[in-house]
């Protein structure tokens, strides 16, 4: 056999290439990732600009020696992104803590996928503009709670310096949740890898905006009741450590649904 090694090598490599997976939307994934990176960098720059402006305003409006005018107005810096709502921790006293506790008591029923098996990414559907989207947008999940996008998430691991997650032990990627207008109640998200043992964490994307150390990778994410008004969207981040197929169980007072997405690790 070894006398014919080189032709055998060609045959073996050709055979292997013939078993290659079929390419999906490679260009779309690359462009989406670049868009997210630019948005993230722009968000960071905007946050810095807001802080500088507000600090400047505070100095301008603050009490001055010898001033006899009315007290200066309070200048309050609201955390960005403002569309987000505070994380509702276990045992916390946020208004919907009891409702969220009830959701938390529901058992997890995540699907399982054999290691190396095909990831049954939730089908994507096109939704009309709303919730901050100025045009049609894609989202996966049966609703009323969905993950916008096509169910493919890429993340840097180990997290690089421009991700906002460096040193946290968890990579991350921004996602935007979309909640139908008809559902008014609280929502609880929990999840894990379903083709392997890795965990899944969440945060409010504040780390990437410089609002947080980026070390908070919550094992669950809760959104208090918001009332039925219109489609609402929440920027967030899924925190990951390895490629694979992941599922999120979304529990609301009137529903329980599963969102399956595939995460691809990019070396930083």
């Amino acid at each position, binding site marked *: *056999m*070894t006398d014919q*090694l*080189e032709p*055998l*090598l*060609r*045959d*073996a*490599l*050709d*055979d*292997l*290439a013939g*078993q*290659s*997976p*079929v*390419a*999906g939307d*490679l*260009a779309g*994934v*690359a*462009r989406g*990732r*670049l868009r997210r990176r630019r948005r993230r960098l722009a968000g960071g720059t905007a946050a810095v600009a807001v802080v500088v402006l507000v600090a400047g305003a505070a100095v301008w409006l603050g009490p001055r020696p010898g001033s006899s005018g009315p007290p200066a107005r309070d200048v309050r810096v609201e955390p960005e992104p403002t569309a987000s709502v505070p994380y509702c921790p276990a045992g916390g006293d946020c208004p919907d803590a009891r409702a969220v506790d009830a959701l938390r008591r529901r058992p997890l029923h995540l699907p399982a996928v054999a290691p*190396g098996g095909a990831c049954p990414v939730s089908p994507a559907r096109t939704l009309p503009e709303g919730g901050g989207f100025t045009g049609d947008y894609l989202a996966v999940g049966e609703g009323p709670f969905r993950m916008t996008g096509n169910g493919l998430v*890429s993340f840097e691991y180990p997290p690089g310096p421009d991700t906002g997650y460096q040193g946290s032990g968890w990579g991350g990627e921004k996602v935007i949740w979309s909640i139908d207008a008809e559902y008014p109640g609280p929502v609880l998200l929990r999840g894990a890898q379903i083709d392997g043992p890795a965990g899944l964490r969440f945060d409010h994307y504040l780390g990437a905006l410089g609002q947080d150390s980026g070390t908070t990778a919550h094992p669950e994410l809760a959104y208090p009741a918001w009332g039925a008004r219109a489609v609402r969207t929440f920027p967030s981040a899924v925190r990951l450590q390895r*490629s*694979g197929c992941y599922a999120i169980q979304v529990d609301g007072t009137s529903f329980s649904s599963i969102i399956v997405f595939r995460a*691809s*690790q*990019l*070396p930083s």
Partner: protein
Amino acid sequence: MEFEQYVAARGQALLRLAYVLTGDAHDAEDLTQAALYDVLRHWRRVARAGHPDAYVRRVVVNRYLSGRRRRASAEVVLGDVEPLSTAATPDPAVGVVARDEVRRALSRLAPRARAVLVLRYYADLDDAAIADTLGIAPGTVRATASRALASLRDVLATPTQPEDV
């Protein structure tokens, strides 16, 4: 040429190259996506230079090598090979077994040695082009290939033992 046009035409070939390098479907997809992301960031310059294949191939291979360096050095990619057969019967299956043995032996090579063999025997590049892709001297390519082939010959010459007896 637009980036999307290029990927539509060459994306599958890139994924095949990534698969031959990594031996794993998930790793190949991750590698291809990471490489295309890098390429997209510099696409105008790449497209202006014409013939982007060489540049893109270089990104894929170097991403592969840097990724392997970052991983645990002891990790061995075995790919989706079937268990070896020890039967020495001259039937058509013997060719399949031989190819599997070669693939298994390939997966045990160091990443750069594997990359050199893949570029030479799968991508059909000459030593100068391989050297350009890897950023090393043509002499280093020849030495690496020679050592890699010798290593494969050693592995393939060693009688295989049935596993899990």
